[in-house]
Protein backbone atom coordinates (compact mmCIF):
# COMPACT_ATOMS: atom_id res chain seq x y z
CA UNK A 1 0.00 0.00 0.00
CA UNK A 2 1.14 3.50 -0.70
CA UNK A 3 1.93 5.80 2.19
CA UNK A 4 -1.17 7.95 1.83
CA UNK A 5 -3.55 5.01 1.62
CA UNK A 6 -1.81 3.49 4.61
CA UNK A 7 -2.20 6.68 6.68
CA UNK A 8 -5.88 6.80 5.73
CA UNK A 9 -6.78 3.21 6.54
CA UNK A 10 -4.67 2.95 9.64
CA UNK A 11 -6.38 6.03 11.11
CA UNK A 12 -9.81 4.91 9.96
CA UNK A 13 -9.70 1.33 11.24
CA UNK A 14 -6.56 0.15 13.03
CA UNK A 15 -5.96 3.23 15.20
CA UNK A 16 -9.54 4.45 15.21
CA UNK A 17 -9.52 7.71 17.20
CA UNK A 18 -12.46 6.80 19.40
CA UNK A 19 -12.26 3.06 19.83
CA UNK A 20 -8.52 2.51 19.99
CA UNK A 21 -7.12 5.82 21.21
CA UNK A 22 -9.92 7.07 23.47
CA UNK A 23 -10.20 10.48 21.83
CA UNK A 24 -13.55 12.24 21.68
CA UNK A 25 -15.36 10.05 24.18
CA UNK A 26 -17.64 12.82 25.49
CA UNK A 27 -19.53 13.08 22.21
CA UNK A 28 -19.21 9.33 21.70
CA UNK A 29 -21.30 8.74 24.82
CA UNK A 30 -23.24 12.00 24.78
CA UNK A 31 -24.67 12.32 21.27
CA UNK A 32 -25.11 8.71 20.19
CA UNK A 33 -28.75 8.14 21.07
CA UNK A 34 -29.99 8.86 17.52
CA UNK A 35 -28.31 7.77 14.27
CA UNK A 36 -29.14 11.01 12.39
CA UNK A 37 -27.61 13.30 14.98
CA UNK A 38 -24.61 11.00 15.38
CA UNK A 39 -23.49 11.00 11.76
CA UNK A 40 -24.13 14.72 11.39
CA UNK A 41 -21.94 15.47 14.38
CA UNK A 42 -19.36 13.16 12.80
CA UNK A 43 -19.53 15.22 9.61
CA UNK A 44 -19.14 18.50 11.53
CA UNK A 45 -16.16 16.99 13.35
CA UNK A 46 -14.58 15.84 10.07
CA UNK A 47 -14.91 19.36 8.68
CA UNK A 48 -13.26 20.90 11.74
CA UNK A 49 -10.54 18.22 11.67
CA UNK A 50 -9.58 18.97 8.05
CA UNK A 51 -9.47 22.73 8.63
CA UNK A 52 -7.42 22.13 11.78
CA UNK A 53 -4.97 19.95 9.88
CA UNK A 54 -4.34 22.74 7.36
CA UNK A 55 -4.00 25.43 10.05
CA UNK A 56 -1.70 23.27 12.14
CA UNK A 57 0.53 22.69 9.15
CA UNK A 58 0.67 26.44 8.53
CA UNK A 59 1.44 27.13 12.21
CA UNK A 60 4.10 24.44 12.38
CA UNK A 61 5.80 25.54 9.20
CA UNK A 62 5.78 29.29 9.55
CA UNK A 63 5.24 30.19 13.17
CA UNK A 64 6.12 27.51 15.68
CA UNK A 65 9.47 26.35 14.32
CA UNK A 66 11.29 28.73 16.67
CA UNK A 67 8.82 28.74 19.56
CA UNK A 68 7.83 25.11 20.21
CA UNK A 69 6.79 25.91 23.80
CA UNK A 70 3.83 27.94 22.49
CA UNK A 71 2.46 24.91 20.65
CA UNK A 72 -0.37 23.90 23.00
CA UNK A 73 -1.59 27.48 23.41
CA UNK A 74 -1.43 28.27 19.69
CA UNK A 75 -3.27 25.08 18.73
CA UNK A 76 -6.11 25.61 21.16
CA UNK A 77 -6.67 29.19 19.99
CA UNK A 78 -6.80 28.12 16.35
CA UNK A 79 -9.20 25.27 17.16
CA UNK A 80 -11.50 27.50 19.19
CA UNK A 81 -11.77 30.02 16.36
CA UNK A 82 -12.37 27.28 13.77
CA UNK A 83 -15.20 25.84 15.83
CA UNK A 84 -16.69 29.31 16.20
CA UNK A 85 -16.75 29.71 12.40
CA UNK A 86 -18.28 26.26 11.85
CA UNK A 87 -20.90 27.06 14.49
CA UNK A 88 -21.87 30.27 12.70
CA UNK A 89 -22.11 28.50 9.34
CA UNK A 90 -24.29 25.70 10.72
CA UNK A 91 -26.49 28.15 12.62
CA UNK A 92 -27.12 30.13 9.43
CA UNK A 93 -27.66 27.30 6.93
CA UNK A 94 -28.73 24.25 8.99
CA UNK A 95 -30.77 25.61 11.94
CA UNK A 96 -32.40 22.24 12.65
CA UNK A 97 -29.06 20.51 13.02
CA UNK A 98 -27.89 23.45 15.14
CA UNK A 99 -30.70 22.84 17.64
CA UNK A 100 -30.16 19.07 17.66
CA UNK A 101 -26.44 19.27 18.38
CA UNK A 102 -27.01 21.85 21.12
CA UNK A 103 -24.16 22.12 23.58
CA UNK A 104 -22.09 19.50 21.75
CA UNK A 105 -21.35 21.87 18.89
CA UNK A 106 -19.34 24.47 20.89
CA UNK A 107 -17.94 21.53 22.84
CA UNK A 108 -16.13 20.36 19.69
CA UNK A 109 -13.51 22.85 20.93
CA UNK A 110 -12.86 20.67 23.94
CA UNK A 111 -13.20 17.48 21.91
CA UNK A 112 -9.85 15.83 22.47
CA UNK A 113 -9.95 14.34 18.97
CA UNK A 114 -9.25 17.76 17.45
CA UNK A 115 -6.31 18.72 19.67
CA UNK A 116 -5.16 15.09 19.52
CA UNK A 117 -5.03 15.28 15.74
CA UNK A 118 -2.98 18.48 15.92
CA UNK A 119 -0.50 16.90 18.35
CA UNK A 120 -0.15 13.61 16.49
CA UNK A 121 0.29 15.45 13.21
CA UNK A 122 3.13 17.41 14.83
CA UNK A 123 4.92 14.48 16.47
CA UNK A 124 4.71 12.40 13.28
CA UNK A 125 5.78 15.45 11.20
CA UNK A 126 3.28 14.93 8.40
CA UNK A 127 3.42 17.27 5.40
CA UNK A 128 0.34 19.13 4.15
CA UNK A 129 -1.10 16.34 1.97
CA UNK A 130 -0.43 13.64 4.56
CA UNK A 131 -2.01 15.84 7.22
CA UNK A 132 -5.20 16.31 5.22
CA UNK A 133 -5.46 12.57 4.49
CA UNK A 134 -4.83 11.88 8.20
CA UNK A 135 -7.62 14.31 9.16
CA UNK A 136 -10.04 12.72 6.69
CA UNK A 137 -9.28 9.25 8.01
CA UNK A 138 -9.70 10.40 11.60
CA UNK A 139 -12.96 12.20 10.82
CA UNK A 140 -14.46 9.25 8.94
CA UNK A 141 -13.30 6.96 11.74
CA UNK A 142 -15.09 9.14 14.30
CA UNK A 143 -18.23 9.20 12.15
CA UNK A 144 -18.07 5.43 11.76
CA UNK A 145 -17.72 4.87 15.50
CA UNK A 146 -20.50 7.37 16.34
CA UNK A 147 -22.90 5.83 13.80
CA UNK A 148 -22.20 2.24 14.88
CA UNK A 149 -22.71 3.16 18.52
CA UNK A 150 -25.93 5.06 17.77
CA UNK A 151 -27.33 2.12 15.79
CA UNK A 152 -26.67 -0.23 18.69
CA UNK A 153 -28.13 2.19 21.23
CA UNK A 154 -31.33 2.65 19.22
CA UNK A 155 -31.78 -1.13 19.52
CA UNK A 156 -30.93 -1.14 23.24
CA UNK A 157 -33.63 1.48 23.83
CA UNK A 158 -36.39 -0.92 22.82
CA UNK A 159 -34.86 -3.92 24.59
CA UNK A 160 -35.65 -5.07 28.11
CA UNK A 161 -32.46 -4.22 29.98
CA UNK A 162 -31.91 -5.00 33.69
CA UNK A 163 -32.35 -1.86 35.79
CA UNK A 164 -28.75 -1.79 36.99
CA UNK A 165 -27.46 -1.48 33.40
CA UNK A 166 -29.77 1.34 32.37
CA UNK A 167 -27.32 4.14 33.02
CA UNK A 168 -23.92 3.99 31.36
CA UNK A 169 -22.85 0.47 32.37
CA UNK A 170 -24.23 -1.39 29.39
CA UNK A 171 -23.18 1.31 26.92
CA UNK A 172 -19.57 1.02 28.12
CA UNK A 173 -19.59 -2.76 27.82
CA UNK A 174 -20.97 -2.41 24.28
CA UNK A 175 -18.18 0.08 23.53
CA UNK A 176 -15.71 -2.50 24.80
CA UNK A 177 -17.09 -5.09 22.35
CA UNK A 178 -16.93 -2.58 19.46
CA UNK A 179 -13.36 -1.74 20.40
CA UNK A 180 -12.53 -5.46 20.50
CA UNK A 181 -13.98 -5.87 17.01
CA UNK A 182 -11.80 -3.04 15.74
CA UNK A 183 -8.72 -4.75 17.22
CA UNK A 184 -9.27 -7.38 14.55
CA UNK A 185 -8.04 -4.86 11.96
CA UNK A 186 -4.62 -4.75 13.63
CA UNK A 187 -3.38 -7.47 11.28
CA UNK A 188 -3.87 -5.07 8.36
CA UNK A 189 -0.49 -3.41 8.94
CA UNK A 190 1.63 -6.55 8.96
CA UNK A 191 1.41 -7.18 5.19
Amino acid at each position, binding site marked *: MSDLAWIFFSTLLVNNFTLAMFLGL*CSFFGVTSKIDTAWRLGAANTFVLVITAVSVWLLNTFLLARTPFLRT*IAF*IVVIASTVQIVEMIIKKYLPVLFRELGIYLPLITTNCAI*LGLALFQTTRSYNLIEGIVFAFGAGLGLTLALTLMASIRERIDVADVPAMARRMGLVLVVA*SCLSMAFMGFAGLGSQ
Partner: protein
Amino acid sequence: MNAPIPTAATDEPRVPATPPSPLWLDFWSGISANNPVFVQMLGLCPAMAVSNSLANGLAMGLATTFVLMCSSFLISAVRNYIASEVRLTSYILIIATFVTVADMVLAAGFPEISKALGPFIPLIVVNCIILGRAEAFAGKVGPTRALADALGMGAGFTFALILISGFRELLGSGSLLGFNVLGPRYEPWVFMVMPPGGFLTLGLIFLVMGWRMEHAAGRGKGAAS
Protein backbone atom coordinates in the same frame (compact mmCIF):
# COMPACT_ATOMS: atom_id res chain seq x y z
CA MET B 1 -16.29 18.38 61.56
CA ASN B 2 -15.21 21.57 63.31
CA ALA B 3 -16.85 24.96 63.17
CA PRO B 4 -17.30 26.23 59.61
CA ILE B 5 -14.27 28.05 58.30
CA PRO B 6 -15.11 31.58 57.08
CA THR B 7 -15.08 31.70 53.29
CA ALA B 8 -13.52 34.30 51.07
CA ALA B 9 -16.64 34.66 48.92
CA THR B 10 -17.74 37.90 50.55
CA ASP B 11 -16.99 40.35 47.75
CA GLU B 12 -19.68 41.12 45.19
CA PRO B 13 -19.87 38.32 42.59
CA ARG B 14 -21.25 38.86 39.05
CA VAL B 15 -23.70 35.97 39.36
CA PRO B 16 -25.82 34.81 42.30
CA ALA B 17 -23.33 33.15 44.63
CA THR B 18 -23.62 29.49 45.52
CA PRO B 19 -24.71 29.21 49.16
CA PRO B 20 -21.62 29.39 51.36
CA SER B 21 -20.49 26.08 52.76
CA PRO B 22 -17.50 24.98 54.80
CA LEU B 23 -14.37 24.39 52.78
CA TRP B 24 -14.36 20.76 53.82
CA LEU B 25 -17.67 20.18 51.99
CA ASP B 26 -16.30 21.83 48.84
CA PHE B 27 -13.36 19.46 49.03
CA TRP B 28 -15.24 16.29 49.89
CA SER B 29 -17.96 16.65 47.24
CA GLY B 30 -15.33 16.29 44.52
CA ILE B 31 -14.29 12.92 45.86
CA SER B 32 -17.69 11.42 46.59
CA ALA B 33 -21.03 13.01 45.63
CA ASN B 34 -19.71 14.88 42.58
CA ASN B 35 -16.85 12.60 41.60
CA PRO B 36 -15.83 13.86 38.14
CA VAL B 37 -15.42 10.42 36.54
CA PHE B 38 -17.93 8.17 38.28
CA VAL B 39 -20.77 10.66 38.82
CA GLN B 40 -20.36 13.49 36.30
CA MET B 41 -18.76 11.33 33.60
CA LEU B 42 -16.20 14.00 32.74
CA GLY B 43 -12.63 13.40 31.72
CA LEU B 44 -13.29 9.91 30.45
CA CYS B 45 -10.70 10.13 27.68
CA PRO B 46 -7.63 10.35 29.95
CA ALA B 47 -9.30 8.06 32.51
CA MET B 48 -9.21 5.25 29.98
CA ALA B 49 -6.35 6.18 27.67
CA VAL B 50 -3.54 6.30 30.24
CA SER B 51 -4.89 3.85 32.79
CA ASN B 52 -3.07 0.76 31.53
CA SER B 53 -0.58 0.92 34.41
CA LEU B 54 -0.84 2.32 37.91
CA ALA B 55 2.23 4.57 37.51
CA ASN B 56 0.77 6.22 34.40
CA GLY B 57 -2.62 6.67 36.03
CA LEU B 58 -1.07 8.21 39.14
CA ALA B 59 1.12 10.59 37.12
CA MET B 60 -1.86 11.68 35.03
CA GLY B 61 -3.97 12.23 38.14
CA LEU B 62 -1.32 14.35 39.83
CA ALA B 63 -0.58 16.39 36.70
CA THR B 64 -4.29 17.10 36.23
CA THR B 65 -4.67 18.05 39.90
CA PHE B 66 -1.79 20.49 39.56
CA VAL B 67 -3.28 22.16 36.48
CA LEU B 68 -6.75 22.18 38.05
CA MET B 69 -5.57 23.85 41.26
CA CYS B 70 -3.39 26.49 39.59
CA SER B 71 -5.97 27.44 36.97
CA SER B 72 -8.92 27.43 39.39
CA PHE B 73 -7.01 29.67 41.78
CA LEU B 74 -5.94 32.12 39.08
CA ILE B 75 -9.35 32.19 37.36
CA SER B 76 -11.06 32.81 40.67
CA ALA B 77 -8.59 35.57 41.54
CA VAL B 78 -9.11 37.48 38.28
CA ARG B 79 -12.78 36.61 37.78
CA ASN B 80 -14.01 40.18 38.26
CA TYR B 81 -11.70 41.53 35.56
CA ILE B 82 -12.80 39.15 32.78
CA ALA B 83 -15.69 40.25 30.57
CA SER B 84 -18.24 37.48 30.40
CA GLU B 85 -18.23 37.37 26.56
CA VAL B 86 -14.60 36.33 26.42
CA ARG B 87 -14.48 34.28 29.60
CA LEU B 88 -14.25 30.83 27.99
CA THR B 89 -11.39 31.95 25.77
CA SER B 90 -9.60 33.48 28.75
CA TYR B 91 -10.15 30.34 30.84
CA ILE B 92 -8.77 28.06 28.16
CA LEU B 93 -5.69 30.27 27.69
CA ILE B 94 -4.99 30.20 31.44
CA ILE B 95 -5.43 26.42 31.46
CA ALA B 96 -3.20 25.97 28.41
CA THR B 97 -0.47 28.00 30.10
CA PHE B 98 -0.40 25.76 33.18
CA VAL B 99 -0.57 22.63 31.03
CA THR B 100 2.52 23.83 29.19
CA VAL B 101 4.24 24.27 32.57
CA ALA B 102 3.24 20.76 33.68
CA ASP B 103 4.36 19.32 30.34
CA MET B 104 7.81 20.92 30.62
CA VAL B 105 8.28 19.96 34.28
CA LEU B 106 7.41 16.33 33.52
CA ALA B 107 9.65 16.24 30.46
CA ALA B 108 12.57 17.64 32.48
CA GLY B 109 12.09 15.70 35.72
CA PHE B 110 10.44 12.43 34.71
CA PRO B 111 11.34 11.77 31.06
CA GLU B 112 10.09 8.15 31.15
CA ILE B 113 6.61 9.03 32.37
CA SER B 114 6.48 11.97 29.98
CA LYS B 115 7.29 9.58 27.12
CA ALA B 116 4.71 7.01 28.23
CA LEU B 117 1.92 9.59 28.47
CA GLY B 118 2.97 11.25 25.21
CA PRO B 119 0.35 13.60 23.76
CA PHE B 120 -1.99 12.96 26.67
CA ILE B 121 -0.19 15.56 28.80
CA PRO B 122 -0.90 18.46 26.39
CA LEU B 123 -4.39 16.97 26.03
CA ILE B 124 -5.09 17.94 29.67
CA VAL B 125 -6.09 21.31 28.13
CA VAL B 126 -9.25 19.76 26.75
CA ASN B 127 -10.04 17.74 29.86
CA CYS B 128 -13.65 18.78 30.45
CA ILE B 129 -13.22 18.63 34.24
CA ILE B 130 -10.96 21.69 34.31
CA LEU B 131 -13.01 23.95 32.04
CA GLY B 132 -16.16 22.63 33.70
CA ARG B 133 -14.97 23.61 37.19
CA ALA B 134 -13.78 27.00 35.92
CA GLU B 135 -17.20 27.72 34.44
CA ALA B 136 -19.32 26.19 37.20
CA PHE B 137 -17.36 27.09 40.31
CA ALA B 138 -14.08 29.01 40.12
CA GLY B 139 -15.58 31.84 38.06
CA LYS B 140 -18.17 32.48 40.77
CA VAL B 141 -16.50 32.17 44.18
CA GLY B 142 -13.41 33.40 45.99
CA PRO B 143 -9.93 31.89 45.58
CA THR B 144 -9.97 29.93 48.85
CA ARG B 145 -13.12 28.02 48.05
CA ALA B 146 -12.05 27.57 44.42
CA LEU B 147 -8.80 26.04 45.65
CA ALA B 148 -10.59 23.67 48.04
CA ASP B 149 -12.95 22.61 45.27
CA ALA B 150 -10.09 22.11 42.80
CA LEU B 151 -8.19 20.01 45.34
CA GLY B 152 -11.28 17.86 45.91
CA MET B 153 -11.99 17.41 42.20
CA GLY B 154 -8.34 16.61 41.53
CA ALA B 155 -8.31 14.09 44.38
CA GLY B 156 -11.53 12.54 43.09
CA PHE B 157 -10.09 12.25 39.58
CA THR B 158 -6.84 10.78 40.91
CA PHE B 159 -8.81 8.33 43.03
CA ALA B 160 -10.80 7.19 39.99
CA LEU B 161 -7.63 6.80 37.94
CA ILE B 162 -5.92 4.80 40.72
CA LEU B 163 -8.95 2.48 40.91
CA ILE B 164 -9.18 1.93 37.13
CA SER B 165 -5.46 1.67 36.43
CA GLY B 166 -4.80 -0.52 39.49
CA PHE B 167 -7.50 -2.96 38.37
CA ARG B 168 -6.22 -3.01 34.79
CA GLU B 169 -2.55 -3.43 35.71
CA LEU B 170 -3.31 -6.11 38.29
CA LEU B 171 -5.29 -8.27 35.86
CA GLY B 172 -3.47 -7.30 32.68
CA SER B 173 0.14 -7.71 33.83
CA GLY B 174 -0.27 -9.35 37.25
CA SER B 175 1.66 -6.51 38.88
CA LEU B 176 1.18 -3.20 40.68
CA LEU B 177 3.52 -0.24 40.05
CA GLY B 178 5.76 -2.72 38.21
CA PHE B 179 6.15 -5.13 41.16
CA ASN B 180 4.89 -8.62 40.51
CA VAL B 181 1.95 -9.26 42.84
CA LEU B 182 0.12 -12.29 41.55
CA GLY B 183 3.17 -14.54 41.33
CA PRO B 184 4.98 -16.17 38.39
CA ARG B 185 2.23 -18.72 37.71
CA TYR B 186 -0.37 -16.04 36.90
CA GLU B 187 -1.21 -15.91 33.21
CA PRO B 188 -1.54 -12.16 32.38
CA TRP B 189 -4.93 -11.19 31.01
CA VAL B 190 -3.42 -9.00 28.27
CA PHE B 191 -6.88 -7.95 27.11
CA MET B 192 -7.18 -5.68 30.14
CA VAL B 193 -4.24 -3.42 29.24
CA MET B 194 -5.49 -3.04 25.66
CA PRO B 195 -8.14 -0.45 24.67
CA PRO B 196 -11.23 -2.72 25.08
CA GLY B 197 -10.11 -3.46 28.65
CA GLY B 198 -10.42 0.24 29.51
CA PHE B 199 -14.03 0.39 28.33
CA LEU B 200 -14.78 -2.90 30.09
CA THR B 201 -13.27 -1.82 33.43
CA LEU B 202 -15.24 1.42 33.54
CA GLY B 203 -18.35 -0.44 32.36
CA LEU B 204 -17.99 -2.93 35.22
CA ILE B 205 -17.58 -0.09 37.73
CA PHE B 206 -20.75 1.57 36.42
CA LEU B 207 -22.60 -1.75 36.55
CA VAL B 208 -21.60 -2.28 40.19
CA MET B 209 -22.67 1.30 41.02
CA GLY B 210 -26.00 0.76 39.22
CA TRP B 211 -26.51 -2.48 41.11
CA ARG B 212 -25.85 -0.77 44.44
CA MET B 213 -28.21 2.10 43.63
CA GLU B 214 -30.88 -0.35 42.54
CA HIS B 215 -30.35 -2.31 45.74
CA ALA B 216 -30.69 0.83 47.90
CA ALA B 217 -33.79 1.99 45.98
CA GLY B 218 -35.42 -1.45 46.34
CA ARG B 219 -34.77 -1.47 50.08
CA GLY B 220 -36.19 2.07 50.41
CA LYS B 221 -39.34 1.04 48.55
CA GLY B 222 -39.73 -2.07 50.70
CA ALA B 223 -39.49 -0.03 53.90
CA ALA B 224 -42.00 2.55 52.65
CA SER B 225 -44.74 0.13 51.58
